[in-house]
């Protein structure tokens, strides 16, 4: 089993600890998905759990995204607290029918009779040279759907703490884990536990520009903020954490402090989450803006394989710094 | 300068300074500043204009003599 080193915990280990805690605490909880058991999870998140909890609760599924995601919905209706793992967000499209047409609609359509307390975890994002069918950031699509709650843990604390809160939620929660984060390691307090899945967080306070981001680009934004600080620009970094419903209050409070905004979103720009955040800022904080809202998003191409093209397609520090400088002027 | 000419000069100047008030309607013994609502700057303008047109030196100590139309006319017409 991989370990992050003495005293340190990796994002992967934090997720595993959260799964383990949930499986121990509530016998209605079970994990299912492709290769979550014998293989240990495509990204080794569930490594060792089969041995500890057995095949009933760590269920390997056939490659049938629609069936096992739908089965998760059905099991939730039947009183269980399923955690469904989908290998990558690209594969989740095979289950989109179940997520959209059933998970998101049943409660409303049944007049409040059938809630779906389901958690779906999936990997998202690029940066590992896995090309155009394993690299996209489609969480913005899911954030479009009323009835779902969409969260994106970008820190060890959130990787450790969001799952339990999501399981306690009576409605479907989709957790998007950025593939580049699994090996991120740091010191996690021994008492780390459940965290809220309602609010955005200020990861770095600043006064001159707000870098609003989430998930895999939080670290990029923090790096950009560091570089900007060297040039005398104090950037505030906002981690959205919950992509639906958005925490407008925290976003607007930051805009009111800094008056300039750069939204960093690994999704494609057109019709993106970045577009939604930007629109809300126009609606709610227009008279606090001292520069046009800037967006740094992925290039509008299917993710290419070679490193240099992938790098060129992704939101990276120089583009964020340049956008922030434009905004600050 | 006759008292009549002096009177005329004073009312002319006051009309310019306070165009919305008619100095012809106030009594000869009424306090000009109160009746026409002149502030200290208006009064200074009045004195300045008066001094210029009459060619007379008017000191601050003379101001009390300019308090009413009657006393003013008498002051200007005087030696």
């Amino acid at each position, binding site marked *: 089993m991989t370990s992050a080193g003495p005293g340190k915990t990796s994002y992967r280990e934090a997720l595993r600890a959260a799964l383990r805690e949930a499986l121990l605490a509530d016998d209605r909880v*079970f994990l299912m998905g492709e290769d979550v058991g014998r293989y240990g999870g495509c990204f080794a998140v569930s490594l060792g759990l089969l041995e500890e909890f057995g095949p*009933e609760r760590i*269920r390997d*599924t*056939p490659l*049938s995204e*629609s*069936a*096992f*995601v*739908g*089965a*998760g*919905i*059905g*099991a*939730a*209706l*039947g*009183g*269980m607290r*399923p955690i469904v793992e989908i290998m990558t967000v690209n594969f989740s499209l095979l289950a989109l*029918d*179940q997520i959209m*047409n*059933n998970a998101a609609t*049943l*409660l*409303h*359509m*049944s*007049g*409040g*009779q*059938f*809630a779906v307390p389901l958690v779906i975890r999936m990997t998202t994002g690029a940066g590992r040279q896995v090309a155009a069918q394993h690299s996209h950031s489609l969480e913005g699509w899911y954030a479009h759907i*009323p*009835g779902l*709650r969409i969260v994106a843990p970008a820190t060890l604390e959130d990787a450790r703490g969001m799952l339990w*809160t999501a399981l*306690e*939620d*009576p*409605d479907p929660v989709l957790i998007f884990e950025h593939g580049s984060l699994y090996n991120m390691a740091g010191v996690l307090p021994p008492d780390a536990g459940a965290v809220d899945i309602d609010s955005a967080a200020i990861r770095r306070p600043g006064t001159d520009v707000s870098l609003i981001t989430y998930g895999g680009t939080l670290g990029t934004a923090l790096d950009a903020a560091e570089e900007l600080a060297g040039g005398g620009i104090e950037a505030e970094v906002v981690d959205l954490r919950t992509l639906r419903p958005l925490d407008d209050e925290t976003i607007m409070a930051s805009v009111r402090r800094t008056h300039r905004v750069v939204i960093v979103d690994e999704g494609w720009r057109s019709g993106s989450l970045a577009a939604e955040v930007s629109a809300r800022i126009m609606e709610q904080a227009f008279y606090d803006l001292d520069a046009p809202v800037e967006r740094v998003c992925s290039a509008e191409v299917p993710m290419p394989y070679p490193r240099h093209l992938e790098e060129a397609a992704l939101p990276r520090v120089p583009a964020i710094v340049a956008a922030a400088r434009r905004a600050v002027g | 300068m006759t008292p009549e000419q002096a009177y005329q000069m004073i009312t002319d100047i006051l009309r310019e300074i306070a165009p919305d008030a008619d100095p012809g309607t106030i009594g000869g013994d009424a306090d000009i500043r109160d009746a026409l609502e002149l502030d200290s700057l208006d009064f200074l303008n009045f004195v300045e204009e008066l001094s210029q047109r009459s060619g007379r030196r008017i000191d601050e100590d003379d101001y009390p003599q300019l308090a009413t139309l009657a006393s003013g006319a008498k002051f200007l017409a005087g030696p």
Partner: protein
Amino acid sequence: MSPRRKTPAATETAAAPSPEAAHHAGLLRQMLLIRRFEERCVELYSAGEIHGFVHLYIGEEAVAVGVNQALTPDDAIVSTYREHGHALVRGIPVTAVMAEMYGKTTGCSGGRGGSMHLFDAKTRFYGGNAIVGGGLPLAVGVALADKMRGRSRVTACFFGDGAVAEGEFHECLNLTALWQLPVLFCCENNLYAMGTALARAQAQTDLAVRAASYGMPAWAVDGMDVLAVEQAARHAADAVRGGGGPHFLELRTYRFRAHSMYDPDRYRDKTEIEEWKRHDPIDALAARMREAGELTGDALAAIDADLAAELAVAIDKARGDPLEPVTDLTRFVYSPRRP
């Protein structure tokens, strides 16, 4: 007589009926309830009182009624958008189903769903589902929960021949068989996926054969014969309940009316429809009962009159029931209570 009674004991003319006769009378009444309910729906739809997509079950009543005989109140049903029959025989009150057609708060889905989305938690009726094949994964999950909790329950999953072409059908049959989940798959094969004849869409038109290939008992049943359906369903449901894993029934049936209201029905030969109407499940059961002396005189007319009265009451009530206030529009997008 109470119009709410589900199973009439007997008619006035049949003195001391046998248990079998009483049972048959019950089946007849249930099929007639579906038939008359939907006939009134046609009328109300034409009058502009109810709206949306309304898919009629007329001709297929034997399937819902027969399968329901095999289910207990603990069992679950996952259905399709042609689900008035399933809902009514499951015991959702006629008034609640009719109110749902009217979109009223007293409807079984609070008026939110309409014809295609009847839900009822009390009877474990997990909804009409308007995505072809979309209900199958739900049924798998509901059954998975029962199995994991050690509950001896059956989940009856209705779907049409059209769903067999969907990937979800194959994913779900495989997964259910793999995990030996207690699902009773009820394929209502009415030969048409909307306008596409089975033979024009499927290489293998023997659907039971396809199900069997996933490793579960599967066979075809005459879906126009309510007694045959009941018998097959009892057999299969008992096996499922007994831990025998999923079972599959292909119920060969036919809808007498178009796919939905005002479908021009250009894809079917009129003579084909007439031929199937000669096998009307209600007529068939009534004839059998007459032959056995279980149905005499004007008993049928009496049931009809009774049902007409019951439906009239339900329609009157639905008309007067309240609409949901617009201020409730976003209610239940998320659960009202979160921890």
